[in-house]
């Protein structure tokens, strides 16, 4: 079984607020002083693929990680190989600056790369990327490849040549079955990406890494985009005038807080 996991590299979404700077000249947002990381839901997607590999012991499962962008950090993507992916395909090109690509262009380029890769039974993406949170690329890839897409996956197993997916719903989950090949967009309910051992970290350095340019995947010129960024701005976030309620001990502070909230009518006594 061949599984492709699409992983985006993003500036650490948990970086301090000053880390994201608007560059008006280039009309984009740049990260300052924070490292790139694997986008969180893409890590969940890789974990979903690894769990399939854990269970399908009678079948050889090969997991290919695909990452597209301008400056893909090998060190960051090593994490995916160390966790258990078998190979990495980087699609790296100046024309693939994620700040200027919309979901349509991204999905179309990734679909071209996947077609070039050839055989696949399952494609995983995260439910949304942690920088722009558009949440459309998975469905777009499936559309371009002409395969079914299942979103908001909380658990994925393989049964009788189908993927069986638990999808998150407002009041619980539903179990759906989709034929192979299919695309599955994964949510955090799948669970966090496993930690590699020292041995796996070492082995990861020897796993195959392939680099493709846009020409390699049959794209020429700048990909067509349908969304235009008209501008960026910053909005003040909620401002509290936090009054710290003190007390001799933490317990007394808790008690004082309760009395204060009742006194101020925040909580009715």
């Amino acid at each position, binding site marked *: 079984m061949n599984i492709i996991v699409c992983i985006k590299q993003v500036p650490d979404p948990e970086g301090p607020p000053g880390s994201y700077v608007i560059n008006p000249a280039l009309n984009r947002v740049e990260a300052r002083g924070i490292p790139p990381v694997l986008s969180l839901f893409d890590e969940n997607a890789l974990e979903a693929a690894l769990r399939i590999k854990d269970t399908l012991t009678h079948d050889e499962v090969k997991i290919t990680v695909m990452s597209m962008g301008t400056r893909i950090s090998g060190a960051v993507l090593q994490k995916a190989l160390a966790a258990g992916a078998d190979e990495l395909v980087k699609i790296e090109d100046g024309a693939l600056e994620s700040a200027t690509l919309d979901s349509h262009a991204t999905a179309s380029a990734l679909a071209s790369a996947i077609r070039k890769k050839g055989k696949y039974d399952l494609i995983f993406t995260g439910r949304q990327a942690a920088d722009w949170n558009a949440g459309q690329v998975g469905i777009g890839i499936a559309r371009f490849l002409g395969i079914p897409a299942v979103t908001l996956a909380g658990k994925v197993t393989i049964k009788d040549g189908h993927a069986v997916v638990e999808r998150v719903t407002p009041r619980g989950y539903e179990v759906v079955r989709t034929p192979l090949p299919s695309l599955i967009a994964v949510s955090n309910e799948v669970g966090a990406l496993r930690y590699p051992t020292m041995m796996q970290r070492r082995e990861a350095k020897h796993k195959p890494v392939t680099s493709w340019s846009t020409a390699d995947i049959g794209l020429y010129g700048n990909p067509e985009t349908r969304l235009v960024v008209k501008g960026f701005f910053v909005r003040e976030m909620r401002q509290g005038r936090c009054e710290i309620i003190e007390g001799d001990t933490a317990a007394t502070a808790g008690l004082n807080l309760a009395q204060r909230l009742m006194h101020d009518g*925040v909580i009715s006594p």
Partner: protein
Amino acid sequence: MSEGAVTVLVELTEEKGIEPVSRECLAMAGKIAGACGTKLAAVVMGNAIGDAAGEVSRYDIDTVYTLDHPLLECYESELYEAAFLQFYTIARPCGILMGHTLLSIDLAPRIAFALGTSLVTDCTGFEYGAEGLCFIKPVYSGNIYASLLIRGEPFMATIRLKSEEPALPSQKRHVEIVRVPVELDRTGAAIEVLERVVGENRGADLQSADIVVAGGRGIGSAEGFELLKNLAGMLGGAVGASRPPCDLGWVSPAIQVGQTGGIVSPSVYIAVGISGSMQHIAGMAGAKTVVAVNKDPAATIFKIADYGVVGDFREVMPAFTGAIRDRRKGGTTQGNRT
């Protein structure tokens, strides 16, 4: 822009009422229609939804389209997409708005790709200027907002809950109700639903609660949440959580608050053991009063809180809960002012 109406996909609650986020969309779509000089319409999908269509027609809109079919009883990606595209062919809306919900997260991109147009998800507003209609969306963990122009028709956006005052029923114009003939069968569908597992509707409890007691990673365990449940129970509120307690299985994912969870704006939000990440704040910034309990005085949550206690919640919360309980019983426990 084409002649068609700005159209809202109205989602129904289990009782076949209108979802609050859909009422917000109706309000926002009304403003957009006003700015662009187009009509305003709503589309309702489901099975046996006649009454719901009547309910929607109480709002100040021009047309209500109903897509009523037994196979639309529950959401299924391929069937809903097919039905919506049939509606599109008939009504040709100039723009489509949906609430940013678990349904639209799946449906809206399908429609956008099928129609070859583009979509801005999880928007908090719009602006209409010389260049046209732009949707505003928080990006980079909500630190920055982007204003995005859609090339292509129809324009599509999903709207984050609590972005707009919900529309109220007010019949100003004559509302036309159009029943769209829907032809559906399962033959083309690849995805098959095997089972639906329905739990308690904790998300809805959280939405409607006036007081939310939320716990974060700092709570440390499922047992720790019992303290918060007791407090919420006593206050007649609901329990919420940041993402880690949901991911770690201490509480149900249905009670997650934040960018990828529920969005709440209660009178009081008590955040316990929550650091205050931007993704969490996105879900509770609309609360009237925020109370934070955290052992780290530098935690970001204090920057947006109105009242705070720095300390271990295991000591703070029992005393806090006890003081309210005593007071309600008529007791007079005294704290010391410092």
